[in-house]
């Protein structure tokens, strides 16, 4: 009975988290179009509902009612499987992120704001993300279209290359916190007013920049959006996909954006930490989502600002600059930790300014 209750609570948690995240993702698409419109001196969609508020719903309905065209001579099973893999892999990482500290709610008692908490949460995120590559590679292959195949290989090569830099960029944080459990990493970043302990500020600026660049490449966004460069290259792996199957790839891309933003927030920006979280724990959820939204805004901003890389520039940058920089970061972090520099810094802050953890 207890197990069933536990399972039911887990399912409820997953449902709530997915609803919140999917709604935010849907409105990210709208926000992207509106902000891009603002940057480019035009309006963007504002017809459906007040200020275009119902646009995501209209988009969804359009995707559902469009004709679903399956290319002749495609490899059927894999063709159907690919968007499912992409979406599932994108959504699966949602369960390990700590959305907030433990909150006391009137009827339910103490509620943990993380669906499941386990020892290797960070590795789980990296593992599930790496499975997402199959969605793209298989989509390109199964469409039986040479542009799709080339696009799929192009995207897969990009994702594999930047996955390395992404993982290496995170090792600095792991070295410092001594754990792979995301909730404890967040708790360690408490600090003064929930701000001074952030990993980004004192200890991992290089790691943060490496992670941010690699994450943008990993989610195929500007300036690394070669997988869907329809103006220069044929769109790529999703050329032959239409209607709801295309919508799934679209969804996977935005959910991926959301999850890498959540990981960046968790590891570098102190997760749900912020002023007065200790007195009002539910504030943590808003801090967390607020920081994630900041990252999403950064994505949109970059899209409105930067031009696109060429593919050889992309590969050169990934392998010759980003990966070595990440390795330097690891060596530097390990050395400083061995010398006790971080402990000294924390002590200095505490005695001089009254800050510190």
């Amino acid at each position, binding site marked *: 009975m207890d*197990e069933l209750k536990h399972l039911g609570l887990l399912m409820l948690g997953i449902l709530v988290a997915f609803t919140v995240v999917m709604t935010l993702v849907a409105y990210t698409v709208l926000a992207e179009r509106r902000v891009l419109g603002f940057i480019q001196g035009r309006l963007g969609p504002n017809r459906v509902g007040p200020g275009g508020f119902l646009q995501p719903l209209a988009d969804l309905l359009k995707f559902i009612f469009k004709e679903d065209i399956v290319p002749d001579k495609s490899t059927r099973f894999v063709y159907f499987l690919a968007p499912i893999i992409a979406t599932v892999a994108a959504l699966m990482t949602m369960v390990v992120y700590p959305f907030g500290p433990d909150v006391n709610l009137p009827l339910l008692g103490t509620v943990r704001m993380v669906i499941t908490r386990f*020892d290797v949460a960070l590795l789980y995120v990296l*593992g599930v993300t*790496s*499975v997402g590559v*199959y969605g793209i590679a298989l989509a390109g*292959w199964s469409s039986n279209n040479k542009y799709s195949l080339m696009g799929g290989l192009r995207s897969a090569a990009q994702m594999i290359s930047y996955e390395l830099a992404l993982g290496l960029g995170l090792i600095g944080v792991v070295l410092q916190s001594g754990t792979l459990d995301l909730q404890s990493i967040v708790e360690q970043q408490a600090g003064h007013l929930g701000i001074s302990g952030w990993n980004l500020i004192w200890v991992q600026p290089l790691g943060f920049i490496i992670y941010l660049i690699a994450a943008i490449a990993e989610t195929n966004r500007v300036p690394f959006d070669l997988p869907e460069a329809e103006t220069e290259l044929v769109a790529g792996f999703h050329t032959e996909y239409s209607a709801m199957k295309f919508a799934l790839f679209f969804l996977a891309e935005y959910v991926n954006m959301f999850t890498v933003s959540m990981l960046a927030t968790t590891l570098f920006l102190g997760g749900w930490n912020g002023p007065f979280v200790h007195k009002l724990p539910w504030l943590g959820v808003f801090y967390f989502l607020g920081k994630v939204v900041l990252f999403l805004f950064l994505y949109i901003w970059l899209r409105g600002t930067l031009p696109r890389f060429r593919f050889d520039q992309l*590969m050169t940058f990934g392998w010759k600059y980003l990966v070595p920089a990440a390795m330097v970061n690891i060596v530097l972090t390990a050395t400083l930790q061995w010398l006790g520099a971080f402990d000294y810094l924390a002590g200095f802050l505490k005695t001089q300014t009254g800050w510190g953890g």
Partner: protein
Amino acid sequence: MLGLFFILFAGLAVGCAISLVVQRNPLYSAISLIGVFIALACLYVTLAAPFIAAVQVIVYAGAIMVLVVFVIMLLNVEEEERRPLRLRSLIPIALMLASVLFAEAVFIIYFVQANPATPTRNVSDVGLTSSIGGGLFTTYLLPFEVTSILLLMAIVGAITLARTGGLLSPRAAVVPGDVVLAKEMLDREKYIDVLTPVSAHTTKEAKDLLGIEDEGQSPKT
């Protein structure tokens, strides 16, 4: 509850493994193998070894199989044709080996059930990252370092094998990603390997451009 998950994932693993052998299309086999790896990772989780599970997914499903899928896609391997078995004499030997394997499995199950082990230490800690890391860098430091040197040798070996001839030849002094202008390519001393020997298809204009004398033909007019 755990039993239910075991049956689910073990069934998935066995099903994928059978599909891996039976499929004719190599890409379907590769996808089945990914399924086996993921099901195995789930089984590791139920065995309280989350670190091994995560590494299984990252290394095998996420890295090695991506390369396999890449190669299959690029080579566009045809569907395998079923040929009649040639070595029929091997069938009884195969059956015998299979039965030995099966008997072994039965024996292990029987043995484990007959002697339920009493764990000497807290088993729930063994699979945790910190205990694995501690073990690797203290008790098993030497094997760990030897393994890393082995992997390094494999990488160096792969590079050495790949660097013979063509654009990657050491003499060519061109590495992938370098921009080589056509003008520079004419520097025959430097890029001697890039310029393949003059063949019967080399046009006269190309030979003129490269400064190669037409041998055995009438001199330039």
